[in-house]
């Protein structure tokens, strides 16, 4: 049987049973996503690689904490990765990136090439969120990205943009409401 076709939840069960191939399958499936997220947040390839390593070690150690009833494995995994990368960014105080126009990041981007099923599914997820983000006003998108990818609170965003706190709150709230509507429309 080809283990790579098993659902994430089944693979986690195998991981809990001590079957190490399960870790390799999860790595193959999600390392690029975790690495890309960490690189976007940290803007440092070495730090992003360390994050990938730390995240997968956490997955191995905390696999019993994952509860499929509470959400998808990918959400649990990227939640761990996001928290770790944001904590690391705050610790290192590297310059924030969060820009797809950043030359350092763009230089490192490789062609996605012909994708197996996992990559194809992830490409679809990417298309959904990228299209939705493009569809909302730029100032709302910026507030959302600064919170998520730069780990800034609304007050910190307000300070950084020299905009009133109320304006930042409104932008973030309206942007999130629009994103929710757009994503729900595209699901139905």
């Amino acid at each position, binding site marked *: 049987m080809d*283990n*790579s076709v098993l659902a994430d939840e089944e693979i986690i069960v195998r*991981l809990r049973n*001590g*079957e*190490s*191939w399960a*870790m*390799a*399958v999860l*790595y*193959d499936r999600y*390392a*690029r*996503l975790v*690495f*890309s*997220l960490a*690189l976007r947040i940290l803007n440092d390839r070495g730090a*992003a*690689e360390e994050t*990938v*390593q730390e995240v*997968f*070690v956490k*997955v*191995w150690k905390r696999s019993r904490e994952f509860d499929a009833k509470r*959400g998808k494995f990918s*959400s649990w995994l*990227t939640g761990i990765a*996001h*928290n770790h990368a944001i904590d690391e960014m705050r610790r290192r105080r590297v310059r924030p990136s969060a820009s*797809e126009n950043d030359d350092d*990041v*763009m230089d*490192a*981007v*490789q062609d*996605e090439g012909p994708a197996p099923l996992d990559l194809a599914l992830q490409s679809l997820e*990417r298309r*959904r*969120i*990228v299209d939705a*983000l493009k569809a909302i006003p730029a100032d709302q998108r910026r507030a*959302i990205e600064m*919170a*998520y*990818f730069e780990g*800034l*609170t*609304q007050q910190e*965003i307000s300070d950084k943009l020299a905009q009133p706190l109320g304006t930042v*709150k409104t932008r*973030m*709230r309206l942007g*999130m*409401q629009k*994103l*929710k509507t757009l*994503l729900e429309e595209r699901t139905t």
Partner: protein
Amino acid sequence: MSIHDEIQELIPAYVLDGVDDAGRKLVERHLPQCDVCTGVLASYRPIADLLPFAATPVEPPADLKYRVLAAALPKVQPRPVGAPGLIDSVFAGLSNLLRSPRLARSPYSSSSRWVCGTSLCRIR
């Protein structure tokens, strides 16, 4: 403004981890006792679940897989260079790890030789 209104105003920023500590504590104290606000939170969760995919896809270096598996799995150890006659069955234990074309292509060079222990990759 009711407490529910206040919480529901905070929730979009909360799911992005964009509220300060006071706001976060306020939300987390309220949610266990309010199904309505918990439902609102759940409606925003898919956005936070999808945002990681907005990061530009970048392929990690090929050798990172070895480092991750070595760190995560106690039995994965660097293969001693020139170790005498490692039996085929040990390499058979690697077959699943080597399914990935990326890993299969990865350097079995002198600096990156890894092999599972005698229990054929069972995690201890």
